[in-house]
């Protein structure tokens, strides 16, 4: 079935491992970077084999060149917490760089530059500020949920996950509500590879980014003349250390926040529905005790792992899990694998809403680059599930779920559901 979807969309690439037997293929041929197995939902056996037989694995040939795959929790932790060896520069994606285009964004910077820039903007998504945004976010969640059809099929991804994420971004920036779809568009454009659907050329990206910069510059100018507000633009415009930020840096920060909060939150929203449908006993547990929502949110984020990996580049020679890493090597931390590491996580393939130590997952990364939006993401998901449980007995998946063609963004493009009211 999944094969058909892939064949229907595009010709299978020579790199694809879809349909291959993870347990018998030569270790050296395992290439986690190719999106095929991720879209087809066949990646878990490959991750399990590497964890067991070759936890720090070298893939010599792939469409993105050679790279190391790190698949055990403790090795991932070691890489993530050693920025002096494993650098986030020049990029945290597996494709070397979009040479013609890169943002000055702190996610792909090392200290001290990273720290300086992160400090400037992180206050906006710190819990103290989120408290101010909570009411508005809840109101918008309620509006969306109340507008959904009951006992009738619709696509959860479009109607809820994407819509909600877009509205939450608009809330964060106090962005004109009727123009909110621009945010999602800019996020898609910023990360798209030209020629793969979203944009056709680098020029097209530039045009779009210039539009984004012009729009935000207008908002900046409006807000600098008003009382300081709780939104990101106002905070940047009034902040002592940000008032004089050069335009490229301003744009870089805006784009990073839009991109960082877009697919990740969207796919956690869909992932929760899938998990509860696959584990009906857990859904029943939640109905019996809705106060489990807080714990469940972290379990959703672990189980889903919305970003499958982050990449580092070795600055010096190093030994990792007994393997010799050379300066310049690409090292990929597979969070999607570490989160299923049976040595650290009890029955890791089980979705377990009252799991002990549930917060100790890798989905947000660890160390200096640990996700800046993690509290925002958790708040959004908590509000959403609190409100869902107030209204619906079940969000039932009634057809085939389709997944994103990517080994980075782990998520869904379609999820047909029917809502059953309480």
């Amino acid at each position, binding site marked *: 079935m999944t094969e058909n979807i892939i064949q229907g969309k595009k010709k299978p690439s020579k790199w694809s491992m879809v349909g291959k037997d993870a347990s018998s293929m030569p270790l050296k041929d395992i290439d986690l970077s190719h999106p095929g197995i991720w879209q087809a939902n066949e990646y878990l056996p490959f991750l399990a084999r590497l964890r067991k037989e070759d936890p720090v694995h070298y893939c010599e040939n792939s469409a993105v060149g050679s790279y190391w795959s790190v698949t055990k929790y403790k090795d991932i932790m070691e890489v993530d917490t050693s920025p002096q060896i494993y650098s986030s520069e020049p990029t945290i994606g597996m494709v070397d760089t979009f040479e013609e285009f890169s943002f000055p964004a702190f996610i792909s910077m090392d200290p001290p530059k990273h720290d300086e820039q992160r400090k400037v903007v992180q206050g906006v998504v710190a819990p103290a500020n989120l408290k101010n945004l909570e009411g508005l976010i809840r109101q918008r969640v309620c509006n969306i949920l109340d507008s959904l059809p009951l006992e009738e099929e619709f696509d959860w991804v479009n109607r809820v996950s994407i819509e909600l994420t877009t509205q939450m971004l608009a809330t964060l920036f106090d962005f004109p509500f009727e123009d909110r779809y621009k945010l999602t568009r800019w996020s898609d454009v910023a990360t798209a590879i030209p020629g793969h659907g979203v944009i056709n050329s680098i020029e097209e990206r530039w045009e779009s980014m210039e539009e984004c910069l012009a729009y935000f510059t207008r908002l900046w100018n409006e807000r600098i003349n008003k009382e300081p507000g709780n939104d990101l633009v106002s905070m940047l415009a009034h902040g002592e250390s940000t008032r004089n930020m050069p335009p490229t840096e301003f744009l870089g920060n805006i784009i990073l926040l839009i991109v960082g909060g877009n697919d990740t939150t969207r796919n956690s929203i869909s992932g929760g529905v899938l998990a509860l449908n696959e584990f009906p006993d857990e859904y029943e547990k939640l109905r019996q005790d809705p106060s489990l929502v807080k714990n469940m949110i972290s379990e959703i984020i672990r189980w889903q792992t919305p970003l499958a990996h982050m990449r580092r580049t070795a600055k010096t020679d190093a030994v990792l899990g007994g393997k010799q890493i050379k300066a310049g090597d690409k090292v990929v931390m597979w969070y999607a694998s570490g989160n299923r590491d049976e040595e650290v996580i009890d029955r890791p393939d089980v979705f377990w809403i009252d799991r002990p130590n549930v917060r100790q997952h890798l989905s947000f990364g*660890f160390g200096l680059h640990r996700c800046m939006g993690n509290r925002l993401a958790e708040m959004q998901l908590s509000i959403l599930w609190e409100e869902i449980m107030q209204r619906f007995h079940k969000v039932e998946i009634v057809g085939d779920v389709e997944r994103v063609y990517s080994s980075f963004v782990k998520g869904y493009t379609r999820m047909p559901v029917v809502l059953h009211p309480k």
Partner: protein
Amino acid sequence: MIGFCLILKAAIVAAAKNELVAKGELEMINILFIEHDGTEHPVEVKAGGSVMQAAVSNGVPGIDADCGGSCSCATCHVYVDSEWIDKLETIGPTEEAMLSLSTDRQETSRLSCQIPVAENLDGLVVKTPEFQF
């Protein structure tokens, strides 16, 4: 009858503990955690673990410890009572790097997973922040 047994059992356990403490084999150390709203949580732990573990294993709220003590999440942030701050070992480079990114760092901020519970800390007082981030 059951009540009596329990009292007896408690007495035996307490006596055994006192004996160990007297022998210096089991030193119990008192730590007082105070939430941002003033709620107090006294705990009694053995030397050896970290202040973070002392909180988590005794159900003290306000400390998330998302990385489980690897000094890589900063969600075990505490404010050490100023009377005690000089008794602690100095902040290491990794702790400093993580703390420097905290949005509400104060002068006595520490990551509690980096404070070993030692005998000279009997009576330690730490405040937990309103939010961990």
